[in-house]
């Protein structure tokens, strides 16, 4: 009898725990809203919000910023004793820092089983999308037959000064991306390749969005950018394609739940909805390379991309790589 009582108490505890995996939909409706701070594009969040509200009658208050800004806001609020966010969509290293400080709690969801083991991080859970960086070109200016067929093809003299990339001395994702090149081509070849890229005097943009804009407008019709733009702008009639190489690098994006959510039920309901087939399809539809099994972004051969996560760099690692690239790209 005592064992049954303990089991019941445990079940009750699990059921009442704010981070339980099975949310109380009625409770979420009563809470009325969920506050999310994240780096996912607002246009995509608008689509999610529409369906989420339609299904559950719960509003989403979304604060968008770069991962750095999102983390900055969350930590500043936390240090002032105000944890206003419920869920954050963020980078792994930043989530780990927040986990260490007790700002985010343990993430759980019944949807986890639909994600492959290799996208799971032991501390922060699964990456829900990979922001893949590839060689993108504008078909109005470059015929597919004339486009490069491999990374190395960009080192041909005809592309000298004719392609664009984010400045690796300024843009942290690009710093990480270049530093992770050995993962796909080995260290020696990667070192030679990076020096070769720098010697080609590429047009350097402040970040990947302006780089992709230059490709889109034809100002610089080829360069390194996120593959998702092919689907996003393709829907509007832009003729963009990417160079199909065997392996591509990208940045994994994760999510975290507040250790003290203001709206615990709504937060859990959102996490489950977001990671569900329905939620992930919304992301895939706008070109995001989501990681849920069987859901692929809406551009050609996306299911064949062999994606590899970029290596994390700590502060000293960033400084060292940034200096290294400054010496070769900006000399």
């Amino acid at each position, binding site marked *: 009898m005592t064992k049954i009582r303990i089991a019941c108490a445990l079940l009750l505890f699990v059921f009442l725990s704010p981070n339980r995996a099975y949310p109380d939909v009625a409770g979420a409706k009563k809470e009325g809203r969920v506050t999310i701070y994240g780096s996912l594009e607002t*246009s995509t969040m608008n689509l999610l919000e529409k369906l989420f509200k339609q299904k559950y009658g719960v509003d989403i208050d979304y*604060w968008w910023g770069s991962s750095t800004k999102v*983390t900055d806001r969350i930590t*500043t609020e936390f240090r002032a004793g105000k944890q206003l966010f419920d869920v954050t969509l963020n980078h792994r290293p930043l989530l780990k820092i927040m986990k260490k400080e007790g700002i985010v709690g343990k993430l759980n969801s019944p949807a986890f089983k639909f994600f492959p083991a290799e996208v799971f991080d032991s501390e922060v859970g699964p990456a829900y999308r990979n922001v893949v960086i590839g060689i993108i070109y504008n078909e109005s200016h470059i015929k597919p037959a004339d486009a490069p067929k491999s990374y190395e093809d960009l080192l041909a003299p005809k592309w000298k000064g004719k392609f664009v990339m984010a400045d690796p001395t300024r843009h942290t994702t690009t710093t990480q991306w270049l530093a992770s090149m050995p993962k796909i081509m080995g260290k020696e070849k990667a070192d030679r390749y990076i020096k070769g890229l720098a010697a080609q005097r590429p047009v350097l943009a*402040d970040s990947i969005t302006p780089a992709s*804009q230059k490709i889109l*407008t034809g100002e610089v019709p080829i360069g390194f950018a996120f593959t998702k733009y092919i689907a996003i702008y393709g829907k509007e*009639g832009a003729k963009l394609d990417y160079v199909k190489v065997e392996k591509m690098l990208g940045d994994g994006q994760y999510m975290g739940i507040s250790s003290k959510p203001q709206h615990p039920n709504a937060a859990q309901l959102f996490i489950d909805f977001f990671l569900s087939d329905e939620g992930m399809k919304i992301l895939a539809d706008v070109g995001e390379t989501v990681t849920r099994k069987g859901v692929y972004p809406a551009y050609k051969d996306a299911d064949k991309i062999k994606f590899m996560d970029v290596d994390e760099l700590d502060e000293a690692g960033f400084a060292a790589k940034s200096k290294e690239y400054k010496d070769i790209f900006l000399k």
Partner: protein
Amino acid sequence: MTAPVRRFVQPVYLLYICAGLCLAFISLYPTFFLFYGSVRSAPLGVAGHLSASNYIRVYSDPETYKLVANTLIFAAGASGLSVIFALALAWITVRTNAPFRGLLELTAVIPNIMPSLLVAISWVLLLNPTNGIVNQLSLSLFGLAPFNIYGIPGLIFVESLVLSPLAYLIIAAALRGMDPSLEESAKTSGSNELGVALRITFPLIRPAVLAAATLNFVRAAESFDTPAIIALPARIELFTTKMFREAIGSFPTNHNLAATYGVGLVALVFVFVYLYRRFTAEVERFATVTGKGFRPHQIDLRGWKYLASLTALSILVLMVILPFLTLVLVSLMPFYQTLSRAALEALTLRHYVNLFQDDRIYSAFRNSLFLAITGATVCILFAAMISYLTVKTKVIGRGLLEALAFIPWAFPGTALAIGILWAYINFPIPIYATLWILMVAYITRYLPYGLRAVSSVIVQIHKDLEEASATCGAGLWTTLRRILFPLMRPGIVAGWIILATFFIREFSCSIFLYSPGAEPLGPLIYFYYEEGSFGAMAGVGVMTMLVSVLLVAATRGLTKGRAIA
């Protein structure tokens, strides 16, 4: 009651104490947090100690001095060019008989409502060396693509266009409020129109010109919008770009370093405030609004009047028409692309239709309008009070008020936002995560703009008028209400318009302080830009400008006829 006590219970001293306390609070409270942050080894809320390490890091880096030099060249160039544009425009539209001057005058105010981010983007679309529209046209006509926006000259040019409308409003207000008797005396003494303009008119409006130049110098020095679009790709390092990249845009964020750069800019700006106060110390020299009735006469340019209109129109084409048309074009494109037949065939109104379907856009417009109307009203009334105390009274320590108002002005918006965030996040009145923190931030940051607009008019009001009022037995309140306030009205209206148009599109503080549910237009436009949704961004931008034009037109309509003639 002793004499000193009696002095402090006089209405003017009570006003001074109230204004001083309010100003000291809104100005010093966040500044204290920023300064404190600059001398700490860790962010606020985290264990740390007092340390000079941030200052050592910033000022032992030789690159810092290069950045300061670049910033000074950029700010001086942009400010100087903006004043030249504004002076030419203001003189032609206010003082001459050039045809269409009413229309030109209205057009000159429009760029003040164009978000500067959008102006910079428009000019990149027009003048980028590869496929800029102007270069493309020139290439097809003359076989040359001569322009390259990515350089210091391009940066100065675009920023000066962004800054010109503010200078125009200040200088035009001063020109309108001038006493013609001095000019008439010069003409009676045999001086020609040019001689009058050079020897009488321009010296008389010198405080307004200096005010505009000082304002624009500091505005350019702390500007990030245009540098973000032009200086970063051109690899030109300015103080703000370096600060943004290394302190705020870096990983991990270093607020303490940001605060240290901010304190450096405060020192720089204080030098300019001191210089400005020296220039305008002898206010009597500039007093031109006397008790006599006046109406500045219009200069007959005879045959030259068409050339004057053409000159003003050329400036306006650069300031307004070209960037605006580019923006409209981008707002009609499904996605941002080079101008071609295919692009023209694909034009769509989709982004405008979306404006009326998206709750988020509606909510941003509502929030920004509230902030613009309420915030600008509170701010300009406060500015008028401070301006009166600093310029028109002999209250001890009146200079302190102006110095206090200028402190937050010296901080780049993002750095000030950090100070405000630290200051108000745990404030007993819970304004954090509401629209009210944005209002406090806007008033704190933009008060000097209101102050300059009102001061440039108030220095021209001769003290005879107040003395006459006092002689007739009127008290402080009656003199303010019956004499000074009506005479200050052109400056107050100009200041209100400047502030309202700033507030409706404010970006740099808002991006850091807004909360979900209290989102204004500035961050919304920026998100679209960051996401590469240029069409949506341009659509919201054009609609923001339209709303601002209606706001300005309504204000001018309401105040028309009440302004001093």
